[in-house]
């Protein structure tokens, strides 16, 4: 029998914190990212090559979470959902002040293209019973962050395993 509070059990498998990106996928950040890692792949730079290979210019798939990191300031901004809010909800609910991310897998779907406006949400997949590790005592949890484009096509998923814990005294 699960020792999870009913509130947490209710979160498992549920879409939470669905938001739309604040801005369209933009070439400037694509070029800046490619420049930062000296990535000369023509599908990001050369329209002719991109038309032939990827049916038009695309963003590097690994940029997927960039489109939800806000500008430092924006007019009329109200409260923002924190990236991985579900992770912070779990820390708070279980009273676990410390946390680490032990594993991060990103899976890529349809290519993301300049002009796309993406949506994202978070899904809690599972939470372990209490476990003792060398860091302390706490729980492991798996969270998926799903991304789709404006047409509802799946463009990627980030999967995190987190461990929330308190140091043993």
């Amino acid at each position, binding site marked *: 029998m699960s020792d999870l509070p009913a509130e947490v059990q209710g979160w498992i498998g549920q879409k939470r914190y669905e938001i739309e990106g604040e801005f369209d996928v933009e070439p400037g950040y694509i070029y*800046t990212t490619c*420049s930062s890692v000296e990535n000369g792949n023509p*599908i990001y730079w050369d329209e002719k090559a991109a038309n032939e290979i990827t049916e038009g210019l695309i963003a590097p798939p690994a940029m997927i979470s*960039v489109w939800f990191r806000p500008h430092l300031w924006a007019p009329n901004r109200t409260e923002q959902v924190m990236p991985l809010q579900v992770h912070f909800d779990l820390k708070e609910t279980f009273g676990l002040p410390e946390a680490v991310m032990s594993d*991060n897998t990103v*899976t*890529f779907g349809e290519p993301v293209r300049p002009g796309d406006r993406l949506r994202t949400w978070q899904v809690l997949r599972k939470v372990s019973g209490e476990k003792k590790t060398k860091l302390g005592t706490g729980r492991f949890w798996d969270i998926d962050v799903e991304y789709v484009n404006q047409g509802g096509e799946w463009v990627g998923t980030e999967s995190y395993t987190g461990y929330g814990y308190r140091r043993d005294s």
Partner: protein
Amino acid sequence: MSYPTLTADQVNSGDSLPELSKDVSPVTVVLGAMASRDWRPQHHDHKFATENNGVRDIFMNTPNLAAWFERYVTDWTGPYGRMGWIRFRMKDSVFPGETMVFNGTVTGVDTDDVGCAWAEVELELVSGGRTTTVCTARVALPAHEGDNPWKRRGDDWKPRASS
């Protein structure tokens, strides 16, 4: 126009990816953080990084490391290579003044049930002589000349198959 293309029949388990080496400067770290909209001070403010994080300098952020790994893999495959998934485990940080060295090995080559050819690779980033990140990735390759994994849509694209 033709572009360098690695096809699945040219790849075998145990193959090594060409090594990639890059000297890291403060600009490398700051540009990478800016490119990924990461304004957290440990990636641009030496005083904050040393006094608050207890590390010896600013350090590279994770999204930019992901971009470095992606570049490393597709330098090897050419532009027809399409990443299916990538999995990271961070062990240490990358600091200015170090040299990053990327290495990789092919651990498997297969074809999925919709005919897409895949290579799995294990990757390692050594910086300043320390293994800072280990990574596994699955990348789709053209099965033969004329094939193009980027043309796969919907049910013909199954990157999760072996994740």
